């Protein structure tokens, strides 16, 4: 062995403290120790080329993270003690938290499990260590979110059974199937899906909206959590970029595989984010920016620069990016209109925007809002006080891949619903778009397995055939408390009393006429 007498630099020292603890096995075959590394077809010729995306030894990790946790929990304690929920902008805001706790927090837990697994799967020890650190970080997020929302749960409805709902409720199968899809994939696809496509490319479109939404609406608990998680996320993002560059540099045969994954996970992420778009445009009493603006900054600009950078590896921007870019002016309105109609089957409340809010939407969406959406919303707003709050009692057709009802419209004609279907092995399958249909065609064996909530209700697998039984018994949504219109809801009344106002009896009667 060469005689070394120079002090190790930081990079080499970190390698000695991580990957050098690994060794070439000789008593067991490497393929048996790492059986999942090759079936996806990704070729790794030299793991030593892996660049550690960050250098954090465990002692430093414990120290930094403990400091962050100490500050975070001090704020949580103060928030609960001072009844911080009374200082938010308006109780409608809490509905964004309900969506977050049931839709996003369970994904943090799934991420913990997924990273723990890939943190074992790779034969490159440097990559394993980075993944394990993300695993424990994601456990952190899952738990601190429970703690951040704990006080809200004591004072508002709809936050009381998040994990149970995540496994069952119709719209929560959108985020759940997204993560199930990633976790059932091989380790390289998992990282391409979550570390790269989600954490690196799209994360700003999830966390910035929720966290600045919290800041604009006086929610100290969630803001503090968001800031505290930021340095974790920074590490996760560097892992995402490193992983993609590493795979692409290892072998040219990897390029088409990665391109297919990028296409798939961009589209799946984009569809998932329509829930966030609706939250931003409709559920925040104090608005941060419009969904279209967020998409322009965080995807069109930042994502554009990223894919320019990846061009040298032979990677092009995701397929159907043009469709997604065009849809930024539509998806949030289409999603809110849907949730408004199905507000009897959600754990959060829905409502029609007030006049100044409608004006804000008109101004932010000059091309589309007045033309396609405002008239319908104004009509619904008029119907409600007449005792005809609109609820749709038919069950929607879900997309086989993204599991969102087929509510989106064609790129070139916003008056036509986008709908695709194919027959596979004698069965007909429905999709919201070419993007989702293509994903199915690549892996039909996978997507035929989807647990589609509407099918499951029809098949009698949800404790009842009628919506009311499913919603109350199977979903654990407390009817008349968690669901229906916001105006007149128990949350609304409680908020009025917090603010020392009388609740208007005429308004509060109106939630009764839901089917």
């Amino acid at each position: 062995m060469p005689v070394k007498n120079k002090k190790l630099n930081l990079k080499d020292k970190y390698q000695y403290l991580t990957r050098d603890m690994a060794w070439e096995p000789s008593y067991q075959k490497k393929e048996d120790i790492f059986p999942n590394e090759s079936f996806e077809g990704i070729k790794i010729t030299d793991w030593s080329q892996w660049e550690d995306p960050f250098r954090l030894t465990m002692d430093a990790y414990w120290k930094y993270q403990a400091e962050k946790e100490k500050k975070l929990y001090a704020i949580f304690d103060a928030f609960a003690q001072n009844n911080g929920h009374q200082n938010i902008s308006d109780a409608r805001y809490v509905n964004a938290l309900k969506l977050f706790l049931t839709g996003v927090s369970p994904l943090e837990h799934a991420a913990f499990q997924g990273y723990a697994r890939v943190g074992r799967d790779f034969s490159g020890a440097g990559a394993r260590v980075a993944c394990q650190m993300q695993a424990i970080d994601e456990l952190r997020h899952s738990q601190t979110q429970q703690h951040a929302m704990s006080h809200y749960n004591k004072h508002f409805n709809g936050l009381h059974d998040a994990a149970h709902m995540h496994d069952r409720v119709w719209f929560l199968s959108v985020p759940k199937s997204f993560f199930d899809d990633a976790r059932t994939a091989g380790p390289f696809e998992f990282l391409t899906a979550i570390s790269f496509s989600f954490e690196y490319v799209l994360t700003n479109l999830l966390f910035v909206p929720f966290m600045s939404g919290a800041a604009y609406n006086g929610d100290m608990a969630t803001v503090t959590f968001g800031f505290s998680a930021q340095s974790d996320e920074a590490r996760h993002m560097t892992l995402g970029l490193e992983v993609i560059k590493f795979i692409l540099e290892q072998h040219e045969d990897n390029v088409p595989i990665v391109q297919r994954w990028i296409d798939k996970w961009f589209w799946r992420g984009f569809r998932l984010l329509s829930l966030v778009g609706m939250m931003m445009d409709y559920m925040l009493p104090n608005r941060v920016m419009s969904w279209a603006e967020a998409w322009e900054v965080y995807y069109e600009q930042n994502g554009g620069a990223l894919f320019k950078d990846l061009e040298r590896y032979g990677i092009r921007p995701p397929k159907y990016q043009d469709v997604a870019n065009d849809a930024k002016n539509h998806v949030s309105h289409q999603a809110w209109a849907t949730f408004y109609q199905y507000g009897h089957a959600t754990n959060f409340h829905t409502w029609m925007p007030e006049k100044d809010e409608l004006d804000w939407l008109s101004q932010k969406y000059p091309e589309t809002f007045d033309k396609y959406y405002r008239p319908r919303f104004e009509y619904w707003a008029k119907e409600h006080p007449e005792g005809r709050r609109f609820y749709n009692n038919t069950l929607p057709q879900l997309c086989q891949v993204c599991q969102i009802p087929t509510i989106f419209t064609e790129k070139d004609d916003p008056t036509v619903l986008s709908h695709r279907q194919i027959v596979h092995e004698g069965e007909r399958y429905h999709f919201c778009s070419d993007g989702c249909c293509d994903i199915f065609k690549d892996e039909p064996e996978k997507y035929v397995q989807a647990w589609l909530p509407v099918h499951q209700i029809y098949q009698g697998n949800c404790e009842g055939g009628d919506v009311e039984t499913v919603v109350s018994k199977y979903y654990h949504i407390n009817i008349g408390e968690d669901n229906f219109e916001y105006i007149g809801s128990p949350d609304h009344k409680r908020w009025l009393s917090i603010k020392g106002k009388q609740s208007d009896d005429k308004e509060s009667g109106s939630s009764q006429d839901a089917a």
Partner: protein
Amino acid sequence: MSIEIKTNSVEPIRQTYGHIARRFGDKPASRYQEASYDLEAKTNFHYRPLWDSEHGLNDPNRTAIRMEDWYAVTDPRQFYYGAYVGNRAKMQEAAETSFGFCEKRNLLGRLPEETQKQLLRLLVPLRHVELGANMNNSKAAGDATATTVAQMHIYQAMDRLGIGQYLSRIALMIDGSTGTSLDESKGYWMDDALWQPMRKLVEDTLVMQDWFELSLVQNVLMDGLLYPLVYEKMDQWLGEQDAEDVSMLTEFMRDWYKESLRWTNAMMKAVAGDSEANRELLQTWIDHWEPRVYDALKPLAEASTGVEALDETRAQLATRLKKFGLNSQGVSA
């Protein structure tokens, strides 16, 4: 000035989440409870794993152990993430003081070459065992089907990485941060006859499928013999070899092991006590693995403390397992 008194709405409408209330009643819950129970997805998974078509996601059948409720396995330390890192931050602070003290006075660099070599041959190669433990616990964290169980394993995984790093730093102190001592020590791990049974054992654990069997072998049987042997008995022996300063640098491991017994014992008690079938299965695994662990450590004991020390730790393990209605080959002293 008038004071407006609000009588309303400060009263909570519920004390905790529904899934916590179903277990413990609707009363104020601890942070540990809200962070640990029923968070993991249980049902209605969408697709089967491409990497294991025989099982689903979060599939309880990834181990042959059957529990009526895996959440019956809980952590007596009540560690959720915040409590865990808070505790380890304190432990690492103490370790840092010791490492700083040794480094400043060059206590290891001044040891006789023969003693240094003993450290590199007998102690530092354990960093590789730690990495194996790290991998095995990461697997268990990914496969376990209750957050109470999964989280203990990811903490354990990260702890083992940390311990491997502390062991590595001992060598870096010896070689003045050039890495030569780590290279030398790794050579013993790879080629020295002393380590080959242990390296084979670790590699054998890396191909195990059943995560609970793996946790038993790693966290109860291997650690149960190795930690008392190395960090108690061999620590004393090293002191007699003029390497008593090293003891400061392994204090973390001693404290850590004492603490880890709390959760591994609680886990064993809950699992073995849940059914006779579980107990029998655990017994089969112990019968198979305990002698292998013993044999793997024998050369290390022979080269340092003598085999009697290993026999003593073996008897301790046997006494410990007895409490769960399980037998191993150790003879109680």
